[in-house]
């Protein structure tokens, strides 16, 4: 697989919520193709029965005492919201009319 197809790139961009032009899709198809080509060298390795590593150190659930504490102030949390109204985040229509 020397190159991802333009359709594949457009599909991936859609999954990742990235608007993409035809020209960009062409460029990324070549670049991602080169990267996945390179990544294919991993297939040389026999990894039968090798356990995948998601974390290098043993990770386990960390518990704490359930003591009520004050959270962040709501007005403060709204500080970086671009559009808001009555303490709510405002967005354009979610469902097409």
């Amino acid at each position: 697989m020397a190159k991802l197809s333009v359709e594949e790139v457009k599909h991936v961009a859609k999954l990742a919520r990235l608007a993409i032009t035809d020209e960009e899709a062409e460029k990324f198809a070549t670049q991602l193709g080169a990267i996945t080509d390179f990544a294919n060298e991993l297939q040389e390795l026999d990894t039968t029965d090798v356990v995948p590593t998601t974390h290098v150190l043993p990770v386990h659930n960390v518990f704490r005492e359930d003591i009520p504490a004050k959270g962040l102030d709501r007005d403060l949390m709204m500080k970086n919201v671009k559009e808001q109204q009555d303490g709510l985040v405002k967005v354009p229509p979610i469902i097409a009319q």
Partner: protein
Amino acid sequence: MSLFDKTSAELQQALLNKEITIADLTKEAYARIDALDGEVGAFLALNKEAAEQEAAEKDQVPFEERGPLFGLPIGVKDNIVTEGIETTCASKILEGFNPIYSATVVEKLREAGMVTVGKVNMDEFAMGSANENSAIKKVHNPWDFDRAPGGSSGGSAAAVAAGEVPFTLGSDTGGSIRQPAAFCGVVGMKPTYGRVSRYGLVAFASSLDQIGPITRNVRDNALLLEAIAGVDEHDSTSANVEVPSYVDQLTGDIKGLKVAVPQEYLAEGVSEGVKAQVLAAIEKLKELGATVDTVSLPHSKYALAAYYIISSSEASSNLSRFDGIRYGFRAEADNLEDLYLQTRAQGFGDEVKRRIMLGTYSLSAGTYDAYYKKAQQVRTLIKQDFDKVFEEYDVIVGPTTPTTAFKLGENLDDPMTVYANDILTVPINLAGVPAISIPCGFDNNMPVGLQIIGKYFEEGTIYRVADAFEKATDFHNAKPQTWEVK
């Protein structure tokens, strides 16, 4: 001459002798930033008013209440959130973002009494090896302004190399502290995964990211790591392992230390100039009483591919939070779906998009097993390589980068060539072990970095080796011509 010629210990002595004040140190940082940063490009946001006020207040604190870093200026990488100081990750998508809390490391800097001078430049979302992916401006290597400072903590390394500040924090996902430290001739430590809290570090690849210190000498580096390390209730992956005194371990004595040199780290692809300096450094370690053997980390050649798949996959998930709704840039759109699509298309740069798409692709049904799962299995093999060598040896030593700093603009359209730069640093993140880069010579007038890799949570041993080398050599005292401000 600059106040920042001095080490932190010398600065504390000068403060105690009333030769200087903390206000002078802060002033010196801003004066040098004023004079140099137009060309270096290391700083994104300055915290001048607050810092000067803090400095004046700190001058009133009695000496017996001060620690070894008290009053000293520091720059913080712009992917570490700082309450009250704009934090952008050098991305358009976080334009104008003002954090409402500070990262744990920033709180720890405050506890240590350090003065945060400002935020330093980086590759957008820490994705890059030349700092050319900053959406704000390029960083130039203080040793040669035409060359890259490395990345992604290019601003952190360049700011220290130019003497704008004596300390910075960087973050390292695949070499982002060590590679720029090597390119800029400074000391950069990537601690063990879990050693430093990641709370408030804008996540790139959560299973690989670590925050670490960049300084001009080993002792100062050890002091800063001591200040920021430790378990944190806000980060469940931070390790509940005691933080020892690293400075106490700087004995200068490495007699009998067992050093492993992986043959793969001096193989094809490593330039002759870099190889020569690193081999000379290894000779120096022998002179100091270490025993040195050649070993093999047989899966090294697969690390780069595994790294780019794993880190991009994690990034594609982590960066989904940037949707234009709650913070940062928001594109104009008539409906929510378009708002997401346009905000992300206009807000992210090309390298970030490439990685998000590579990650999304690797995690997709149909490719998951061949890419993501396979890369995680290879990660296991790489970790086992290190485990095996560390059964017999105390540290692993090699170059930090295959070459010295390359020219800016050289590899802009060729991501794979830039990625290849990380070949000697990414295996360390995949294994999660700690590693430092220290200056060990010059090749064509550009600094060469020596990488010293240690066992899990044995940063102290790394510092002991690095410090012994530093005491026996003079490379850390070399300064770029730009250091002298007229």
